[in-house]
């Protein structure tokens, strides 16, 4: 359950930015979670909802975009996309070559925040 510490980090990062901007509260936090990031978005939502209640930003929404896994084939340069972990097999859909050349899908990023000044 490392989602709790990840939710904590998200809130800390957003609050640091809020202070830098001299704004009053956070309205929305946008994050990207790769399907191979090892994070459960459900557990993260739950952790975030629990923690955000302890801050002045009670109504802040966490908006999560799940990003696909993409591999680039070293053989034919073709990019293969996997939308979910189901039936995952890291090989090129075009030529069948196995590939560990991951170009995205492991990320865990805070993209942007929406803040209020009232």
């Amino acid at each position, binding site marked *: *359950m*490392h989602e709790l*510490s*990840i939710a904590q*980090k*998200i809130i800390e*990062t*957003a609050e640091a*930015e809020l202070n830098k*901007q001299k*704004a009053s509260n956070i*309205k929305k936090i946008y*994050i990207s979670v790769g399907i*191979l*990031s*090892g*994070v459960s978005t459900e557990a993260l939502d739950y952790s975030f909802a629990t923690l955000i209640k302890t801050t002045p930003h009670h109504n802040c929404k966490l908006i999560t975009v799940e990003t696909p896994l993409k591999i680039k084939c070293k053989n034919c340069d073709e990019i293969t996309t996997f939308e979910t*972990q189901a039936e*995952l*097999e*890291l*090989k090129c859909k075009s030529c069948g070559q*196995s*590939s*560990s050349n*991951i170009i995205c899908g*492991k*990320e*865990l*990023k*805070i*993209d*942007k*925040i*929406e*803040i*209020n*000044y*009232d």
Partner: protein
Amino acid sequence: MTKSPKIIQIRKNILEDNDINAQKLRDKFKKHKILVVNIVSSPGSGKTELLTKLIPELNKQGIKVSVIVGDLKTENDANRIKKTRASTYQIQTDGNCHLEAHMIENALKNIDWKNSDILIIENVGNLVCPANYDLGENLRIVLMSVTEGEDKPLKYPTMFNSADVCVISKIDLAEAVEFNKKLAITNLKKINPDLKIIEASAKTLTGIKTLAETLIKY
């Protein structure tokens, strides 16, 4: 006058603090020419038992080893490893499900790591959370024991994808538990085509030499 809401672009890794700490550690280890190995697996896959056999084998080949071991509670694993005479320190995470780079930095004060050739970090037994936390290691080894089922890599793809080496442990029990080795290897390669696979048993010492040589050559 109240300003209207504003969108601020951040574009930052959520675990950036850990990544920065891990990179500092990696630079430090490089300066001292120490190979750092992070060993991960589910609880009970045999990480500690494997180390009690691997360390003497490395010592035999002139390699000095120091060890940091992470558990939620107890010094039990460190006490088992200390019998190999390796400089060992136990981190008790007190509930935390993984080790983080700053914990390694603190633990270094308690072991003679500068005087070793290899630092082995035995992570908390958990196939999920430790995958996200870089500890400044050069090599990540995941253990999968034959008793766990051949589909472990498919169930925990992040961890198996993040590893460089997979040790199939307790291989002496393979027959008893009807372990389908071919299927296990197919599954491992599906998730991580470049993964190096070593079959090992701490009981019969199968694969211990191969694993030691893999570390020495790395």
